[in-house]
């Protein structure tokens, strides 16, 4: 049985959000909750609407319908900078760092909207401890970093904004398995050490389910499964379609099963 995840006072509560790109209905009604201090993963294939969901939360796109409450106050239809000021910070897909600024300048850009200059130094120090590679390259231009280092920089830059909710869009994109593991380990560490709530959208289901607390599975703009990551990892459909574990019946001759059975999301 699935645990009902929609709770009374979540940090982020999304209710019946529907988002369109012109005539295309990318999100067809999504409700989900992110509780304070949790790391929540949203899984889904290409085109499931994961990125659209994050962009909608961050205010980059306005939802056509539905409510998004952050800390009990509605944030739908606010401008992205206002959403960020309230503590919801997006690490976009494909990092989007400033290539001609140095690592240190990139990090400083993250703190642009911050009023409390006092904590700045501490946070910078924290980031450089989490990501020692950034310390080594702090004077280098961002564009000269490797993909993994750029991802670290993007996360570090977002953390400089002192987020209460960090939105990560596909941090594993284009990274080697080893680097992916490293990034996720640090994300989890950030979550544990600073109690920053994290909503991560990911195609790499194995790593996401192993790292996060709660999870949702999206398909074609709808949530099809919800539960703790442990519960999700036990579902047959998650195992077969997201984790690549062979389905219920193996082939008699040991051939790899090519055809897909239909999903039921039990």
């Amino acid at each position, binding site marked *: 049985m*699935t645990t009902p995840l929609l709770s009374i006072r979540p940090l982020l509560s999304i209710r*019946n959000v529907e988002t369109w790109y012109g005539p295309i209905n990318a999100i067809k009604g999504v409700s989900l909750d992110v509780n304070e201090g949790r790391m929540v993963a949203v899984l889904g294939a290409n085109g499931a609407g994961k990125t659209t969901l994050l962009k909608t939360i961050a205010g980059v796109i306005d939802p056509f*319908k539905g409510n998004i409450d952050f800390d009990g106050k509605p944030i739908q239809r606010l401008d992205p900078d206002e959403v960020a000021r309230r503590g919801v910070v997006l690490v976009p897909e494909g990092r989007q760092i400033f290539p001609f600024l140095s690592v240190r300048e990139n990090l400083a850009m993250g703190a642009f909207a911050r009023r409390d200059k006092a904590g700045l130094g501490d946070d910078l120090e924290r980031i450089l401890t989490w990501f020692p590679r950034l310390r080594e390259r702090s004077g280098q231009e961002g564009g000269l970093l490797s993909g993994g280092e750029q991802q670290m920089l993007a996360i570090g830059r977002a953390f400089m904004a002192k987020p209460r909710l960090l939105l990560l869009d596909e941090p594993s994109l284009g990274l080697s398995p080893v680097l992916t593991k490293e990034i996720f380990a640090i994300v989890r560490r950030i979550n544990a050490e600073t109690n920053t709530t994290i909503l991560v959208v990911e195609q790499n289901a194995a790593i996401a389910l192993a790292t996060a607390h709660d999870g949702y599975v999206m398909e074609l703009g709808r*949530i099809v*499964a919800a539960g703790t990551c442990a519960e999700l990892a036990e579902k047959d459909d998650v195992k077969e379609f997201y984790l690549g574990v062979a389905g219920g019946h193996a082939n*008699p001759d040991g051939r790899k099963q*090519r055809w897909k059975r*239909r999903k039921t*999301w039990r």
Partner: protein
Amino acid sequence: MALEQMPPILLLGHDTPAKLFRHRCTEWADRPALRRKQKGIWYSVTWAGYYERARAVGLALADLGCGRGDAITILAENRPEWVYADMGGQCMGLVGNGIYPTSSPEQAEYILTNSDSRVVFVENDEQLDKLLLIRERCPALLKIIVMDLTGLRNFRDPQVVSFDDFIAHGRELARTQAASFEAAIDAGRAGDVAFLVYTSGTTGAPKGAMVSNRNLMFQIGCVTQYISIGPGDKTLSFLPLCHIAERMATVFNHLSVGMIVHFPENSGTVFNDIKEVAPHLLFAPPRFWEKLYSQIELFMQDSIPLARRFYKWAFAEGKAIAEAKIDGREVSGMRRWRFKVLQVIALSNVRSFLGLQNVQNALTGAAPVPPDLLKWYMSIGIDLLEAYGMTESTGFSTATPPDRIKIGFAGVKALDTEIKLGPEDEVMIRGPNVFMGYWKLPEKTAEAIDAEGWLHTGDCGEMDADGYLRIKDRIKDIIITSGGKNITPSSIENQLKFSPYISDAVVIGDGRKFLSCLVMIDQDNVAKFAQDKQVPYTDFASLTRAPEVVALVRYEIETVNAKLARVEQVKEFRLIQELLTAEDEELTPTMKLKRKVVARKYAPLIDEMYAG
């Protein structure tokens, strides 16, 4: 009278479908017979091509060692290879049967061993895997022929052949042995078994109903009594070919009227394919028509107010005309003219939206039909006609004449057949459409067909003065409440299913104080309701638990209750929290809930309703 002594039924001088098939393939050689959509493109096959392929398959089957009377099996969704195999087999005097693609390996094994099938045609990798699991236990099986080799490039197995190789071999044989194919067709007799249809078997193991050539020739001859389409008109073959209704429509009605049969890309694209093909004839179970109807109802909710107003107006006019037609009243010329205009403005769009703009014959059956559904279609200008039949009567045994529609009745009997009501109002049928019996089950056959030749249908019905038959329910499904009232659950379920939010329902109450029901919601429509009403949910189970959804279903049930007598009212209900698929044992391959299985599986849920 023993079967052998019955006079053959001749059509164009032929006494078997195989001979008629050969006749048509010569007569209509260059006309398109079949069309199939593949990767978005429609491919045609002419009647001559159909014959040539059936011949190749037939000769290749004989070459494997299949002799007259041997069984062959097809395990595939509808596609041309299905009918090539079926027709090729029939021409050679083989007895074909079909297995639902959603069947489990065990179910497939039962049919293969029960029929002693020698060859099985499977659709693809998925179906082949079922065969590989069970083939050791099917000793009669010689070969497995695979239609679609996707994913099997490196697969080698001495028992497995590709359909392409198989048919190529048959073509090779046809160069020298074409005459033996002709001889095999000529050797067919009216009394031979043409094919087997395994009944879905909600109780016990499936039974193979034997359909004779004579049964088929009779039904082919009857086709024009309820169908008015002709050569070149279009149909879509999308219901399972294992089922008698689609088997008749795709393979045998084809021989009578010569329409072009279209095969959809796959079962998921049917609604799109209908729009594309715009068929002239559409036969589908009520559930399908309900789905189309609910698409329109929900679509109209989202349309602009002006469109809604025109639709409402046109619909009301259509309804008035439909009601007049049902009652047999005349409609004034003015009114008819006004409706024509409104049709052009509003309803013709609705029909095109559904792909029904060309429909001349819209038929439904195979399950009880909600009366409101028929009225709705009549109101948009489509006379949806109800028919009644079963495997054991080789498909249709009654059909509604287009000029005299009676809502709630399944029409009148076919010419040259008899229908009467037996004890407990059981519908009994006698005539050339009554099947030969169950394969290797003489005692079951004796239960179904009595000494005088009456087929006991197991359905409870009534007949009016004009000979119209109304089907009430399966006799064994009739509920007797603890108060001693006899209730036919399907009439209640039918009215519930008419709601766009209820996809199916099972009414329970045998030996209980009151009636209750289990409801399977329509996922798409309820999800849309939830979205419109801002009801949060995550997965399917949480959707069924949402209080607003429960309230919605309660409202739908109350609406139906208002039309029912007190004892028939549904007092309690529960929603089925799992999204069921055709693979689940609760559903038939046509997505109907199986009463017995549901009652067993959801026993705790049912007991809960009666606990209070």
